[in-house]
């Protein structure tokens, strides 16, 4: 019992100690790329509005789409997503002609 308790205290102590030390060192690493971060700040807070033609989107996947679109814009602008606000977005309409669409729906229509 005593042995278990000693191991419990020492063990947890050492685990914490080791990880706190690494955490402190890694915290210092941040300074390595400070100069780079300043560049990023140049593109701070860009409210972006993307609205393109046509058609309503169903509400359901909106949150997921917002996340995807935000991160896509963020990576193309070389910044992080908390610097951006996606206000609205619309799905781009079909680029095919009506003839194409009719032909495709005919070809794939169920026989039954």
């Amino acid at each position: 019992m005593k042995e278990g308790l000693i191991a419990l205290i020492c063990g947890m102590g050492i685990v914490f100690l080791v990880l706190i030390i690494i955490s402190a060192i890694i915290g210092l690493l941040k300074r390595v790329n400070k100069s780079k971060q300043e560049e990023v700040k140049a593109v701070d807070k860009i409210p972006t509005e993307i609205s393109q033609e046509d058609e309503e989107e169903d509400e359901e996947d909106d949150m997921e789409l917002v996340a995807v679109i935000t991160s896509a814009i963020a990576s193309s602008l070389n910044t992080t997503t908390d610097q951006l606000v996606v206000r609205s977005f619309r799905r781009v309409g079909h680029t095919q002609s009506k003839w194409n669409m009719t032909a495709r729906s005919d070809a794939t229509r169920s026989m039954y």
Partner: protein
Amino acid sequence: MDFMSELARVIGGFIEKTGIVWTINNLFADDVWAIRNIIMIAVALLLMYLAIKKKYEPLLLLPISFGMLLVNLPLSGVMAEPHGDNIGGLLYYLFLGDELGIFPPLIFLGVGVMTDFGPLIANPKSFLLGAAAQFGIFIAFFGAIAIGFDPKIAAAIGIIGGADGPTAIYTATQLAKDYLGPIAVAAYSYMALVPIIQPPIMRALTTKKQRQVKMEQLRPVSQVEKVLFPIVVTIAVILIVPSTAPLVGMLMFGNLIKASGVTEKLAETASNSLMYIITIFLGITVGATASADKFLTVDTLSILALGLVAFACGTAAGVLFGKIMYKTSGGKINPLIGAAGVSAVPMAARVVQKVGQEENPSNFLLMHAMGPNVAGVIGSAVAAGIFLMMYGG
């Protein structure tokens, strides 16, 4: 006529040597108890079903269950030691890779390549959560000693709470070889059950408001930091706990060959072909340690129970520490991410993401949870190192 009797004798002799006859003859024989083999075969088939149909960690559970099947089929001798002219079983030789501590660190090499320490570098405080969740290891160790296990064995059982298969296997082979089967099976079963075990504990210990906390976006991490990280961690950890060198060393080496960007081929090999080869060997030989005489014991039940305790306590400690950080950060840290401190990468982080999103559909905790998650891998390797320093040969 003579020919016929000779033929009958040969066929009879062959039949005598089949596993079927052996099983029937020894079904309830003292010391042999062939009925146990039948039970173990049933267990192996059940695990196979879980792996194939339910997709519970199939990459490991399938080889493990097949190894279990092979070793429990009567007279297969796959784990037989060599003696005299008998050269010994196939899996006996492959098992040397586990026994000599070769396979688990090689798995860690691949894991290192595949692990992105970015979220951890961006938020080094995650290390604390990775440390807190190791509490389960020591609680289980304490419990195992309390119910009468030898400290060495208790240490190996405790590591189940690290939710890290290779670490558990590595520790078990060094400290409690005879218990490797039950320990590995417990570790991998509970890792597969993380989505079932963790959420109730996480919900019980946090308030709705805490679960809804949205965390700030992590800062981008530079290439230089990613390269320095494995080097710094290797030096710091091994200087303090030298016995973690095989595990942490390989993990960080794997990460370095990936992060450096100059050894793509090595990274590719370590995380694909090499890792899958080792997984096959490791899985099937670990399964083969679960022979009826070693597995069907009261100890196995205790180990399974202690493993569950370890998991639950680790999760609880992580979440509770998360709550402390929630308070000290002024409500900026979602305490749920503490649960990811038990390694089980990336399953535990996904569970956090899911539980967080249930409360607030626009909350994305995944990357925040990956920090404590990968810190947990380092944390459990350190805990294993501490046990090896205390009880290792």
